[in-house]
């Protein structure tokens, strides 16, 4: 039972809010999990083609993006600590760093995809359909869908974090009402979790 001192904010329920966020995260697990199942079966059926196609990907850019996401996960986790310690300035700073890192991730992705397009590789491209094996077409199809869907989550995560940032600035998200920031953090860590599996499965096939 909640105590009565929170009567001025009758609709604030941090436990329920967190539970709701987790339920949403479980649905995301099924979304990406389904794609991982498709990936694993096609890889099992086309091991050589997946290896050949995987070597086309740039491990260095992949590794840099991995580290960027890991650092951004740390900064947003730290921002909740800063909020709880009532250090608003540091909270805002850490959130801005997180958003900037997300942006850098997307810029890297832009160049990475750009190089692929330059080499004539995009879903349904003539080069892909005419010159490559079925397994390679499947690999690049999954690559674009899964990293694309992940990039979409990065964009949504950035918007989520920016909303939280605005609310921290206004003071409606504060040490006593941190739920929105915590949930933005949970979402951002989910984006990180997905990448933790995407990176080895696409970039580290040899």
């Amino acid at each position, binding site marked *: 039972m909640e105590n009565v001192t929170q009567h001025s904010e009758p609709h604030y329920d941090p*436990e329920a809010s967190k539970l709701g966020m987790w339920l949403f995260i479980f649905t995301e*697990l099924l979304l990406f999990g389904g794609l991982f199942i498709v990936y694993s079966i096609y890889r*099992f059926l086309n091991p050589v083609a997946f290896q050949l196609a995987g070597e086309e990907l740039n491990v260095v850019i992949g590794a840099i993006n991995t*580290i960027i996401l*890991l650092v951004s996960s740390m900064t947003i*986790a730290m921002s909740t600590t800063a909020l709880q310690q009532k250090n608003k300035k540091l909270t805002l700073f850490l959130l801005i760093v997180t958003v900037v890192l997300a942006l850098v991730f997307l810029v890297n992705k832009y160049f990475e995809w750009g190089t692929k397009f330059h080499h004539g590789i995009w879903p349904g491209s003539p080069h892909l359909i005419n010159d490559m094996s079925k397994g390679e077409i499947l690999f690049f199809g999954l690559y674009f869908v899964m990293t694309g869907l992940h990039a979409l989550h990065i964009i949504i995560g950035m918007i989520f974090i920016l909303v939280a940032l605005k609310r921290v600035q206004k003071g409606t998200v504060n040490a006593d009402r941190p739920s929105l920031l915590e949930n933005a953090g949970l979402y951002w*860590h989910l984006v990180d979790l997905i990448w933790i599996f995407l990176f080895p499965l696409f970039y*580290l096939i040899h």
Partner: protein
Amino acid sequence: MEKEKHHIVPYRVYFYILLALITMTFMSIGLVHINLGGYSVLGALIFSTIKSTLVLTWFMHLKFDEPFLRIMVVFVILVFAALLFITYLDYFFR
């Protein structure tokens, strides 16, 4: 009933977790250059699993959350594992 005070995780804990995560990223990249054949996928997945556990436990605060959240997360992961297992059984022994 007054809830236990919200646990505040010190900054350095998050930093140590980050270091562990980055180290494991480099280890999984290093693994590629050692020829393990079919086991390299397994190795990469083991590193990914350890990394996700760290993210779930520390970054996502499960360590300090209500036990029912932890139970739910483990349960959902097990359900997903069952889904994987059944799909593979169907596919590979058809």
